[in-house]
Structure formats: C-alpha cells, structure tokens
C-alpha cells in the first residue's frame, strides 16, 4: 500500500478537470416554468409533472435549514443556479455504443471504463453526467434475470407503474427543504428493481459527475428489492475544481420487501474547495431506506472525503418485524471542510435491530459532527440498537462534535451508545517512523486502522479505493 499512497498523497485533487463539451443548459433560476421545462425535456407523463409542481409549491413555503446543523455557510442563491444541463451530442444519450467519445474519455480518465469489454470486475455502471445518464453497462445481462438497472428517466418511460408505486414512498416530496427541491427539479439518477427471490449477480454502481459551471446536480435514485431479493449498490462522485460553490441535492430511496437485503455503499469525493475554503460542493443529500417487510435488511456504508459541506443522514425505517438496519460511516474533513452527518434508525417493528458505527476524522481546520437518532416506537418490542461513535483529531485547529439523540418508547428495547475521541499522537507517528515508515504513510496506517470496521463492510475493490482516498484527503494535514 505504501507506494501507492505515497504517490497519491503528493498529488492534488486529480478529478478537477473540466470536459470541454457543448451542453444544453437551462436558463438560470427556478420557477414553475423551469420545472415544466425539465419535465418536458424528459417527456414525462402528466402525473409526474404534477408531482414535481406540488413539490415545488411546497418548497416555496420552506426555509433553508440553518438553525440546527452544525455547519456555517452563506445561504444559497437559488436563482443563480441552472437546474438542467445535458451534453449536446449528435447521437442520442443512453446508448454506449454510439456515445460521444469525449464523454467516454471523461469516464476513462476517472477510472470508470464504460466499455463492457474493458471491465474486468463484475460491476455494472450507470454513468450520470450533469443532469443526464450517459449510459448503463450490462443492462442486457441483468435483464436475463429480470433485474432492471437503468437511468431514472428511462425507468419513467419503460416502467412507469413501478416508478409511480415507489417514488416518494420513503422520502416524500415534503420531507425537508432539499428533498422538496430535489423532487421539483430532479433530472436523472438510477433505478433498480430486483424481482422476487433474485440475488443480483454483480455489483451495481452509479458514477456521478458534475461538469458544467453554475449548475446544480439533483439526481434521484430508487432501488426496490422485492421479496427475498438482494442487491449491492455503489455510488461514486467527483466534480471539477471551481471557485464557486456548487449544489448537489440528491435523494436516494431504498425499499426492501419481505426477506430482501439491500447494501448501499458510497465513496463520496466531490471537490472539497481550496485551502482557503473557496469553491467546493455543497452536498445536501437525503438518503433513506425502508425495511417494509419482515426480516428485511438495509445496510448503508459511506466513506465521505470530499465536498465543502456535507449534510446527510442515511437512515433506515425498520417497519417489518425482525428487520435489520446498519450504518457504517467514515467522514473525513480537512482544510475548511465541514460535515454534519450521521443516521436515523427508526424502530417500528418487533425485534428490529440496528447497528451504527461512525468514524469521524478531523484535520486541518475541518469541523466534523456526528448526528444520530435512535428512535424506538411503542410497538417495537425487543428492539435493539448498538451505536459506536469514534472521533479522531489530527492537529489542533480542527473540531469533532457528537449529537446523539435516543428516544425509546418501549420498555423491552435496549440501546447501547459508546463514544470515544482520540488524537493521533506524536508517539504513534514516531513509533511507525522508527520502523521505517514516513510521516504520510504512518498517518495513513493509523487512520486506516481507525476506520477498519467500516472498510471491511465495503466491497473489496472499493475498500482499496477508500484507503487510497483517505491518504489523499489527509495530504499535508500534519507537520
């Protein structure tokens, strides 16, 4: 590992390039007309337009949350953002065989080959560029087993009943300010449906890329695992370096029916801004899963290293009896980054179980907050939660904060909360240096050890990627 980390720590954000491609960009600003324009561009049915408009009207009455999150930023000017941007290509999007070479090149540069022949690992990819899906690999192979994996826009056209049934069933359009905004203007995203009893034979993944300046990205992902089905899904994200902040307000909904299992992993590496805190992505995301059926399971694993500001709480509603929710998180802040992240576990069914393991790492002048809610409703007899929340500080100008909320309304439930805060000691670094490791490798080893319980939840190839990412994110954090 040392050789690769060493080279990696010595390079800046390597995904900061811009693809020079002509795009169709909607005029800046938000209005009913823009909502209608997006819906029309995507040739959506009337019910979906109505759904968007209702969300938009609700959003107008809401205010951006500034009181409770432990993050500081200037309110976003929603009229200075463009809400739709699609690369202008001669060929229709969605077909990889005919895709613009510049787009394929972009993903190749990001290390995401979209040509199926070139993919070694069994991972199917949906590539989202600004507001639209560039293409999805392995679609035909998955379809043989009845698995639907396509862009959200395509799902609306091809599988409208499924979309209509589940859209907003976990995160309603009125849920919160950013979820309402997303419901009004979401452009594309991924859609997955795994039919009864089918175990998805490969990892599914979506790669999000913001390219155009002064645009926001508002993708929406919906994953449904029918009875007894299982699927593992991954998302990755990058954006060019720009001096302005860009808004990313996504919504992810997961639905697990009886006996189904969904594993959702995120490696988030949006551009974090420069050392003075100029630029970077505002990552304001609502992710929630619902264990609808008995014995279902939803597991979130996230490695959050990028973004100027992260605001996200991947949550699980444990509705079915004996259902299981898990949240494994590594959140790293360096430079001027701020993160307020955690989870919500809502126990509704009997004997529901949840596990929360959160590892926060703060370096530079970064501020990292864990915020988690464990709620046990009166009917949830025998519910159990275990929470472990560890913070690590590197240097003396950063901060770590913990905001746990525990609300238990059933006397047979049990919840455990363990928390620790540690500082990477000079003695630990010296010990490793005395064994021949340089400072960067020493820190990388200590931090990777600290995050081990989370990394071992990631699919193999992404665990390696995540370890490398930590090295880059903590570049120059000591000394």
């Amino acid at each position: 590992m040392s050789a690769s980390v060493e080279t990696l720590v010595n390079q800046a954000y390597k995904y900061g390039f811009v693809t020079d491609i002509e795009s169709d960009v909607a005029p800046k600003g938000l209005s009913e007309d823009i909502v209608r324009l997006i819906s029309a561009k995507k040739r959506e049915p009337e019910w979906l337009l109505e759904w968007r408009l209702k969300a938009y009207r609700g959003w107008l009455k809401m205010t951006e949350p500034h009181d409770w999150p432990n993050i500081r930023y200037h309110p976003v000017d929603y009229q200075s953002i463009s809400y739709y941007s699609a690369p202008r290509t001669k060929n229709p999007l969605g077909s990889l065989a005919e895709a613009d070479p510049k787009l394929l090149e972009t993903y190749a540069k990001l290390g995401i080959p979209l040509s199926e022949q070139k993919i070694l690992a069994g991972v199917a990819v949906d590539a989202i560029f600004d507001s639209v899906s560039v293409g999805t690999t392995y679609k035909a192979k998955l379809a043989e087993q009845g698995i639907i994996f396509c862009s959200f826009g395509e799902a609306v056209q091809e599988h409208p009943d499924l979309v209509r049934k589940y859209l907003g069933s976990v995160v309603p359009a009125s849920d919160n300010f950013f979820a309402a905004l997303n419901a009004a203007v979401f452009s594309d995203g991924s859609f997955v449906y795994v039919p009864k009893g089918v175990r998805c034979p490969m990892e599914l993944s979506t790669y999000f890329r913001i390219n155009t300046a002064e645009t926001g990205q508002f993708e929406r992902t919906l994953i449904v695992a029918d009875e007894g089905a299982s699927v593992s899904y991954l998302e990755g994200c990058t954006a060019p370096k720009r001096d302005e902040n860009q808004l990313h307000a996504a919504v992810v909904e997961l639905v697990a029916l009886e006996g189904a299992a969904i594993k959702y992993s995120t490696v988030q590496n949006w551009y974090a801004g420069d050392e003075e805190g100029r630029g970077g992505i505002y990552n304001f995301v609502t992710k929630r899963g619902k264990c609808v059926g008995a014995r279902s399971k939803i597991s979130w694993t996230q490695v959050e290293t990028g973004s100027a500001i992260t605001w996200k709480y991947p949550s699980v509603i444990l509705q079915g009896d004996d259902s299981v929710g898990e949240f494994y998180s590594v959140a790293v802040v360096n430079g001027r980054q701020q993160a307020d992240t955690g989870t919500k576990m809502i126990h509704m069914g009997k004997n529901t179980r949840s596990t929360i393991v959160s590892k926060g790492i703060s370096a530079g002048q970064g501020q990292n907050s864990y915020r988690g809610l464990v709620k046990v409703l009166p009917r949830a007899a025998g519910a159990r939660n275990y929470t472990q929340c560890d913070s690590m500080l590197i240097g003396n100008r950063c901060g770590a904060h913990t905001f746990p909320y525990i609300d238990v309304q059933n006397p047979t439930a049990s919840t455990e909360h363990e928390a620790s805060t540690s500082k990477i000691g000079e003695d630990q670094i010296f010990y490793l240096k005395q064994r021949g490791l340089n400072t960067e490798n020493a820190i990388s080893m200590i931090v990777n050890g600290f995050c081990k319980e989370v990394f071992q939840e990631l699919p193999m190839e992404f665990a390696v990627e995540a370890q490398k990412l930590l090295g880059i994110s903590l570049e120059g954090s000591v000394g």
Partner: protein
Amino acid sequence: MPVLEIRDLRAAAGDKEILRGINLTVNAGEVHAVMGPNGSGKSTLAQVLAGHPAYEVTAGSVSYMGQDLLDMEPEERAQAGVFLAFQYPVEIPGVTNAYFLRAAYNEIRKARGLDEVDSMDFLDLLEQKLKVVEWGPDIMSRAVNSGFSGGEKKRNEILQLAVLEPRLAILDETDSGLDIDALRIVASGVNKLRAQDRSFIVVTHYQRLLNYIVPDHVHVLSQGRIAMSGGKELALELEAKGYEWVDAAAEAVA
C-alpha cells in the same frame, strides 16, 4: 570504522538539558550496556539516537556507519539499520501485527534497493522469526500492541527486531515490567539475534537483565554523562554498591 561514534553529545527537552556531553564508541558485534539511576539520561540517549522530536540536540556529533546520524529523519535512520525497542511500545488499533510488520519490512527493503515481498513470502519469513520469541502465529492477526500485556509488548519489540534485522539495536529498558519467564524469553530472543554484524546498546536500570544478555562493555550514566565504563563485572559491582556510589564518584570527578 565503528558502527556508532558519539562525541560530546548534548541534548535538551525544552529548557532542561538532559544529556551533558556523552562519548561512546560501539564497534560491530559488540553489546554495550548503559546503566544508570532514574533521571540520569539513559532513556533520553536511546530516544535521541532514534531521532525523537521531543529532544533537541544542542551540541556534539553522532556518526553511524560514517554518516551523520543527527542529520537523518527517524525513518531514514530506521531504513539505514537503527532499531529502537521501545520502553513503552505504542498501540495501533485496527492494524494487524502482520500488516504492520510487512509494511515496515518492505519500507526498509525499498530503501536498500530490494524488491518488496508479497504477503505469502512474508508469512514464511515470519514463521521462522516467531520462533525467536517462542510465539505461535495467532499474535500476527491481533492489532499492534492493542490489549497486549506488558510482557507481550516487549516480546513484540524483539519480534520486530528479528524481522527487521538492524545493524544497531537499542533496547530501552526492555526488562522493565517483565516477570521472570517473560524476561527469559526476551533475553534469549536477543541472544539468538547477536551477530558479527549487529551491535546492541542495552539500556537498563537493573543488573538482572545482564545475567541473561552478557555485555562486552558496561557504562554508567550519571547526570547526563558517562561516569564510569568497564567490563561486565562493573554491573555486578554496581548491584552491590548502588548508584549512590557512582553519583559520589561523578561528583568527585566534577
């Protein structure tokens, strides 16, 4: 050429001068015991040789294999073959002993222009080295020093010494906190590692360890200087007469 040549070495922690003119020459294959009462500077000497950032060298020179040791980063010293067995080995949670040892082993190999070894080859090597400290393979999957007993931590230091094969090994109070069985294992491990091309500096408060690791030379520190030097008999004499005897002798000289 001596392995190590320390000349008039002075070092301070903050405003406090701890080493006040150390002179010591160590040749290949020799074992030097450095003894002294608490606060005499013997652990500081070990830390300064390894390059601990808490100490500032204020005067003097240290030549290691003809190189200016004080000009090297701690990891460069390690890569060049200087090993410190810590008095208080540090815990690294979540990192297995095997992973850590292989990383260290490969860093040192890389620095010497050798190829890195993969984990399978490394496991073969480890199997041999574990015998030095009479250990089974279970220890390798535990996190570095995490939850180790005092004795296990010290054994782990000797295991690292065995794997990394340094040219100069400095043992900083490796005997402290050991029961008699652990002391025997640790000392016998060190004895197995004695070699023509490996020198030892054994820092210890008590003569006890030197019954097992028999030194070629014994030096007694007092107030940041070497007050007496001699053969292995000096340790026995010291045991009989106590450190006051050395301090008194040092006062008389000063």
